[in-house]
């Protein structure tokens, strides 16, 4: 059917392991650095060819943009591959034509921005499956028997939960499920699950919260 023709993927992203060598610069004069480097390269000709390098600089060292630029060019002329900098001002790196490598050493935590919850306003019907990857799921409608809602974070259902709800599917132990009327076939948090016939019948149809407490699933009225 015309509308179903899937576009073939133009690319895929794959993780590959490669060693990034770090060139830790201890002297502000690039000529000095390059001269000592030449001595090192002469000991093992060809060994360093095409080696990806990340440039870092001692914190007490004030490396100028021109010095960084000269260093970068010097490295390239020696068949080394400077790919970026770490722990240097981004504008300084940009002037030398380099980018900033993140997550190197992990000493600087990247700024985390809260990811907005996924919001569903239509009823989730039997046979449908909704997964909020990396975030919370908010359903402002009922979830029918035979439907499945999943989230890496919390699940909020402003309506009846008659299907299955799985919170913290990537192992988030703190994830919870909230619903206005608990009539679920199955609830699960971080892989711990409970079927409807294992639930306290007195809670059936009432507003409830499902959470993990000491590794066991707890269903509490709201």
């Amino acid at each position: 059917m015309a509308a179903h023709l899937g576009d073939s993927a133009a690319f895929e992203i794959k993780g590959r392991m490669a060693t990034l060598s770090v060139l830790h610069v201890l002297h502000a004069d690039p000529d000095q650095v390059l001269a000592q480097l030449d001595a090192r390269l002469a000991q093992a000709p060809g060994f360093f060819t095409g080696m990806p390098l990340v440039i870092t600089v001692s914190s007490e060292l004030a490396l100028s943009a021109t010095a960084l630029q000269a260093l970068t060019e010097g490295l390239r002329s020696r068949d080394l591959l400077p790919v970026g900098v770490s722990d240097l001002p981004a504008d300084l790196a940009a002037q030398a034509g380099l980018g900033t490598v993140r997550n190197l050493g992990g000493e600087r935590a990247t700024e985390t921005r809260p990811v907005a919850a996924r919001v569903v306003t239509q009823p989730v019907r039997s046979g449908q499956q909704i997964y909020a990857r990396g975030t919370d799921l908010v359903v402002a409608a009922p979830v029918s028997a035979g439907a499945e809602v999943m989230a890496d974070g919390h699940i909020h259902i402003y309506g009846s939960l008659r299907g299955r709800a799985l919170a913290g599917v990537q192992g988030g132990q703190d994830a919870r499920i909230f619903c206005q009327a608990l009539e679920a076939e199955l609830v699960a948090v971080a892989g711990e699950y409970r079927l409807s016939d294992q639930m306290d019948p007195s809670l059936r149809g009432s507003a409830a919260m499902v959470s993990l407490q000491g590794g066991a699933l707890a269903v509490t009225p709201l």
Partner: protein
Amino acid sequence: MARIVVVTSGKGGVGKTTTSAAFAAGLAKAGYRTVVIDFDVGLRNLDLIMGCERRVVYDFVNVINGEANLSQALIRDKRVDGLEILPASQTRDKDALTFDGVQLVLEALAQTHDYIVCDSPAGIERGAHLAMYFADDALVVTNPEVSSVRDSDRVLGLLASKTRRAEQDEAPVTEHLVVTRYAPSRVGKGEMLSVEDIHDILSIDLLGVIPESPAVLNASNAGIPVILEDKTDAGQAYDDVVARYLGETREHRFLSEKKGLFGRLLKG
């Protein structure tokens, strides 16, 4: 431009064809040029319910394959002006329906009609998918029992995702609920789901409730759309369905047990 209405349910035997025949006849009676199409290729029933089985020469699949033109295949109803039937093929299967073929037939019918009623086969496979794909409105036919309600729920999910309106990000298909074979006495005994329960589970607009009635079987056997039997409870219930669909406000009937004179006297 015609409005395309699919009559669907997921589950078989709940009254799709009865509803299609009655609904189409009701629209035609109200003065709209209406055609009802049987999408149940291989299990042709609509012609029997409409009482035109002896007049079928060409069918839907013949038109799709270019073996006949539309005017040869359409059967004009003898009782109601402006009502036509496009029968299914009995000798083929659902694979004979092609996406492009169905689209062309619907586009051609839309030029000459006000309403196109598509009688869907049971299931959620090719025939049912094609019947609902081009729809503007849907009548979801449900019996008051759990498996029928769940299947209807599944179909509602497909209406919201696997139709032209959904795929082209247009206004969604308008969904209407028609509860058939409703027996208030058995609801009272807890043997059947109540209208409230069904409405609560499916949460869509309730277009009408058709009572369980011998009139439906009698009309089917006689090949008369039950809506034309206007003395019967089921006929009147379908008349309400059509009127509400066309925008009239009518109170729901046949929701409670019929009380005899004694019952009324006793209850006051």
